[in-house]
């Protein structure tokens, strides 16, 4: 394991400290743990809270700020944060208008966030609602699984629901638009190089020099299959085919996110987008907006995911609303 760190048991703390020290104009850390909230509490609005394991930077702390999240809670690497920390986050950001939790669909995340919500409701009478993001089409959504995983599409939920909350909408309205994003967003990823959880010291999976994993999750969980490495165009075609088969994008406008997994050079992400743009154009799917970069990473995993969000007028407008956070700024 070759990493630029100090100590395995300090990575989460020092990561959060380093982030908060970099962006004091945007965020501060609560004393109780790795909970990041806006530097200045925005009052009179529904609060958005999200989070999950660490190792997905800039998610989620990087999206705390104007027009996106009010709080982000970071667990240990790839491990859901605990209810007490989430609970502190909820208490810190609630302003009487209620709190929406944006949870990625993992048993751990769902259990811990729900426990926190119960605590906030029982002990403090805070109204807490939840949406569960499940955009990963690599795994089947069937009765026999815990459903699709939540991956990079989550960032679109933060952006769009965050914009509506910033405008003063009610908790129900913010939850509804978040759910609408979830219903319309699909993602699929791949990797050519695994990542190593610092505390584990060994890579989470193995890939031969000529192999890739198609349908990888954001913790290196396998998806569809391990197979010989192909060209960027072939890989894009495989991923897009799965995504486009899942919901009907024909004739619609979409937002595209090409997300790097942590150690994929931007050059390669642009080469990927070159093909994505061509295929969508061929199919008559209009690209309204494209994002290319690192939004939901997996430590130093090498690979990428493609996310397509089918847009309507409301989502388009909210996507374009001003946002000002450490990791995503949209100028008006």
């Amino acid at each position, binding site marked *: 394991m070759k990493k630029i760190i100090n100590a395995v048991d300090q990575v989460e703390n020092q990561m959060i400290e380093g982030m908060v020290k970099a962006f004091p104009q945007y965020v501060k850390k609560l004393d109780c743990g790795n909970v990041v909230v806006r530097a200045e509490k925005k009052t009179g609005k529904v609060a958005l809270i999200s989070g999950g*394991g660490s190792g997905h930077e800039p998610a989620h702390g990087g999206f705390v700020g104007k027009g996106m999240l009010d709080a982000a809670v970071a*667990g*240990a*690497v*790839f*491990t*859901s*944060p*605990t*209810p*007490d*920390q989430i609970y502190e986050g909820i208490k810190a950001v609630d302003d009487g208008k209620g709190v929406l939790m944006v949870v990625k669909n*993992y*048993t*751990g995340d769902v*259990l*811990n966030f729900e*426990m926190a919500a119960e605590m906030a409701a029982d002990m403090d009478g805070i109204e807490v609602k939840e949406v569960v993001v499940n955009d990963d089409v690599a*795994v*089947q959504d069937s009765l*026999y*699984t*815990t459903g699709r*995983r939540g991956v990079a599409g989550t960032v679109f939920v933060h952006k769009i629901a965050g914009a509506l909350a910033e405008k003063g909408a009610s908790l129900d309205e913010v939850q509804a638009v978040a759910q609408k994003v979830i219903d319309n967003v699909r993602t699929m990823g791949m990797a050519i190089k695994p990542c190593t*959880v610092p*505390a*584990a010291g*060994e890579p*989470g*999976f193995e890939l031969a020099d000529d192999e890739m994993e198609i349908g990888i*999750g954001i*913790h*290196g*969980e*396998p*998806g569809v299959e391990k197979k010989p490495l192909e060209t960027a165009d072939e890989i894009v075609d495989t991923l897009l085919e799965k995504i486009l088969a899942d919901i009907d994008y024909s004739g619609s406008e979409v937002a595209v996110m090409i997300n790097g997994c942590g150690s994929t050079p931007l050059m390669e992400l642009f080469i990927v987008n070159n093909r994505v743009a061509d295929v969508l154009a061929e199919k008559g799917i209009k690209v309204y907006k494209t994002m290319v970069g690192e939004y939901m990473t997996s430590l130093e995993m090498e690979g990428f995911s493609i996310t397509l969000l089918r847009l309507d007028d409301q989502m388009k407008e909210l996507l374009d609303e001003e946002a000002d956070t450490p990791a995503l700024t949209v100028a008006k």
Partner: protein
Amino acid sequence: MADVKKVIEIIDKIIADVDEQKLFLTELDNVIGDGDHGINLARGFDAVKTIEDTFESKDIGAILKAIGMKLVSTVGGASGPLYGTAFMKSGALLNGKTEMDMNDFIEMLQVSIDGIMKRGKAVKGEKTMLDAMIPAHDAIKASYEADGDAKKALDAGVKAAEEGIEYTKTIIATKGRASYLGERSIGHQDPGATSFTLMLKAVQELA
């Protein structure tokens, strides 16, 4: 079966065993999950260790509750709220008691199972810790009700839990991260079923 001192002794052993088995549990989770189950539990029981000195002055219920809260606030992942709930429910059950007997233990397993099933929305046969817990509970209960021999009952419980682990190898996971694997989860044992069995063995050995 156990007084406060004995309970502390058992907890002590669990802390040590989890630490010792940390890599093994993590390795199991690496295959069908995300490779952190041992790390998660060790982080939790390391934290329990830091409050162990407060246990002597507590009753068994209070000790179990404190452990449950510690686990909930340090383990994270799926197993944190699940084991945390189990210990908290057990603590509520044994509230005020400074001695517990086999019937208490059997009921404690039952409330733990109920708590985990409710929180995790899982049933038997989904390749989770429940696949060790439920057969263990049933075997202990049946054996103890038959002849009142605590040692024999605990032996039967451990045996059933170990069979439960073997059983998890044969089934597809439909809960937790392993469910993403579908068919590919077959052939591998469940980390949670394994960690539960480790804890039960500590009870068997010392109680």
